[in-house]
């Protein structure tokens, strides 16, 4: 009989082994899934995980998709360390896209080097403002930020839909729900000619370094960790929980807004009803898979970006629905939560009778 036994202290090794176990279990379960659908498991898995990276285009697309995941997850991790559960990065991404898009449209046909930075900054401010709502509700009314930030995601989706169907619809767009294409001064410069990868990819390591400095070197990060681990000790030391709530939510929102701004000024080039394939949600998985540490998160973001690519590849090559991406992401989270039990517990084999405690 298998039994879980509490470890005397949390295992540090398991903290790092658990994500690897989860990934291995996901690959195995994915193989079973493909077999059940009638595909040979190994070639199907190769289609999913390896084929997307076969050429330069694949690699650039991979980095393009990993960028928003890494930026958002690094910022969210600060909040998660401090017990601030921002589940609203998707909405904050959209709010950032709206603010950036609005700015880009207002500066339509204005040229100058300052246009793009202004547009990106508007995205940061828009995302942070959207996140300020759950921050205010939590601080002022003790409303749970998990619920409020999550609910605001749907509000942001509808707000964007209304704008692109209504006031901001392109006059030359044949009634399609989309804005005008932004002009060149509002678009991200490309990094590799002929590919969609833009200079925004450099923001990912930059945000990771900033998050690392805050978390590991700054007194603010120390306060976040104290409040997250032991709120009573934070209260004893006089660390204001409200400042941590406001900062982590708005930093998360601001970075999600930046990611949204870079999506519409990068690969999309205009505002459309759907500006994100769920980056704000997937980033939550990336944050936990990366152990809430910036370096881990960069790696996790690359893996999760691969599931988007793999979904596309599997749809084309095998004819399975695109939802296979969500299935793999869900399995990673599911197995990660299961494997994390091993950090605090160990598995013991015991005889069914005569067992002594």
């Amino acid at each position, binding site marked *: 009989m298998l039994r879980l036994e509490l470890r005397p202290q949390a295992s540090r090794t398991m903290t790092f082994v658990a994500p690897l176990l989860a990934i291995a279990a996901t690959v195995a379960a994915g193989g079973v899934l493909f077999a059940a659908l009638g595909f040979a498991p190994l070639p199907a898995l190769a289609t999913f995980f390896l084929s997307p990276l076969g050429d330069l285009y694949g690699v650039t697309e991979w980095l393009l998709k990993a960028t928003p995941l890494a930026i958002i997850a690094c910022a969210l991790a600060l909040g998660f360390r401090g017990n601030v559960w921002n589940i609203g990065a998707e909405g904050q991404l959209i709010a950032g896209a709206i603010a950036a898009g609005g700015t880009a449209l207002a500066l339509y046909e204005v040229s100058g080097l300052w246009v793009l930075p202004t547009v990106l900054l508007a995205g940061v401010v828009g995302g942070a403002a959207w996140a300020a709502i759950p921050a205010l509700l939590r601080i002022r009314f003790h409303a749970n930020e998990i619920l409020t930030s999550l609910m605001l995601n749907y509000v942001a989706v509808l707000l964007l839909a209304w704008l692109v169907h209504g006031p901001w619809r392109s006059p030359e767009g044949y009634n399609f729900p989309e804005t005008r294409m932004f002009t060149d001064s509002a678009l991200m410069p490309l990094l590799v000619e002929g590919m969609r990868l833009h200079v925004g990819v450099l923001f990912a390591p930059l945000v990771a370094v900033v998050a690392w400095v805050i978390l590991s070197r700054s007194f603010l990060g120390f306060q976040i960790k104290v409040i997250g681990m032991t709120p009573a*000790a934070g209260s004893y030391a*006089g660390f204001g929980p409200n400042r941590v709530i406001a900062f982590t939510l708005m930093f998360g929102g601001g970075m999600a807004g930046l990611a949204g701004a870079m999506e519409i000024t990068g690969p999309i080039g205009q505002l459309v009803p759907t500006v994100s394939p769920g980056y704000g949600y997937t980033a939550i998985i990336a944050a936990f898979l990366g152990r809430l540490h910036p370096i881990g998160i960069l790696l996790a973001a690359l893996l999760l970006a691969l599931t988007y690519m793999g979904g596309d590849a599997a749809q084309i090559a095998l004819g399975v629905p695109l939802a296979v991406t969500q299935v793999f992401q869900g399995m990673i989270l599911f197995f990660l939560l299961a494997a994390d039990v091993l950090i605090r517990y160990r598995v013991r084999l015991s005889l069914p009778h005569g067992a002594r405690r």
Partner: protein
Amino acid sequence: MSVPVPPPRLALKGITKRYPGCLANDGIDLAVMPGECHALLGENGAGKSTLVKIVYGVLQADEGEILWEGEPVRIDNPAAARKLGIGMVFQHFSLFESMTVTENVALGTGDPSPLPELGRRVAEVSARYGLALDPERRVADLSVGERQRVEIVRCLLQDPKLLIMDEPTSVLTPQEAEALFETLRRLIAEGRSILYISHKLAEIRVLCEAATVLRGGRLAGRCDPRRETAASLARLMIGADLAPPVREEGTAETGAPRLVVDRLSLAPLVPFATPLADISFTVRAGEIFGIAGVAGNGQAELLGTLSGETLVAVPEAIRIDGEAVGQMGPRRRRERGMGFVPEERLGRGAVPDMSLADNALLSAHKAGGMLKRGLIRFSRARSFAEKVIDTFHVAATGPGAAARSLSGGNLQKFIVGREILQNPRLLIVAQPTWGVDAGAAAAIHRDLIALAEGGTAVLVVSQDLDELFAICDRIAVMSHGRLSPAQPARATSVEQIGMLMGGVFHLDGESRNAEA
């Protein structure tokens, strides 16, 4: 004697219990006779709690044998223990605040009889053993002493042959404790056995006729406490002689007022919290001021307002060196020279999973100059922690050791040392030696006295009257959210303080006995 000697009611043979990295009980033998009050003595961490938890079926021994009235038994869980006739009154009560005494008894015993019938039996048992208790009252309205009576009555209703009491007087006033001893003597007269856990030597000497002493998980000795002195018992318990702290006659009366609390009142913040009513006192430079009282009489609330975790409406109600600080948080009060040692040392005074260096940062970041433009100077935090460890003889592997890896006494030495090394002008300490071994307690007392002699104003809030009498210049008592006038420690007796702990504030010496 002509009659054959009966077997012991309870006999333990070679009980051993291991935890990862620690041998909690190492081959312990113990025998409790019928009609005997048997003391289990030992310091915190000596293995007393582990041993009684094994007897009560909460834990299982790794090795050894339990004999109940001469028969080997297995006690798999507390229900099995109760079935044998073993009852236990825990140090921490498990009562539902919003329910009545009878309802709590019904829930605790699983007694299916109708509530009025059960209430009658509660009244009957409490009358028979002198445990004044109203079965219809809500537990939230009861004092700590009354709550303990609920727990005792709950045990007695099951007619136990052996009653285990874990540090029962730690929550009682001296008068309440005396009443409890009377009850226990009646139980012994009926032939019941009592296993009495304590580290208070005086009460064991008046109550128990046999004692088993544990030290570091091992059997340190057996004795008849009536024939021992407190000093000889202490030597058995600690394994060494301890010099009691010496408090010289201070200049307390003349020192400048450092902390002034002036008509402080506070409405309850959460249900069942004690409101504070009109509290006034002054702590002067060079003085150790003690606040006594049974837990739950508003000390936690008062400490919250003093530390700055709870802000008070009238800023002038709390003044440090004449400055109104009632609206200032903990960090601003620290900047004004206040140090604070909270009661809950692991989880408030220190973050369990952080290193000692990080825990130095927690409260000493400003005084220790550990910050520069918002970034942490880790080397300063480390060297500060190292200095605390060296100066206050903290047994730890170094500044990198996690706070939770320290024993209670060593962590307390670290926290007290961390506050003292910041050179506070005012130090507030809650329960300085609660759950701390005697050696560490003596060291902490010496440090507090030395600090006061250096001119710091020290406020000690404690439930331990012996401690307060040993180190304080003046003592005031909290009861029901009020604070008595302060008494000079040398001119006050334990009995007088005990009266105040019961809430009798404004009586002079003559009318005391009549009133009681």
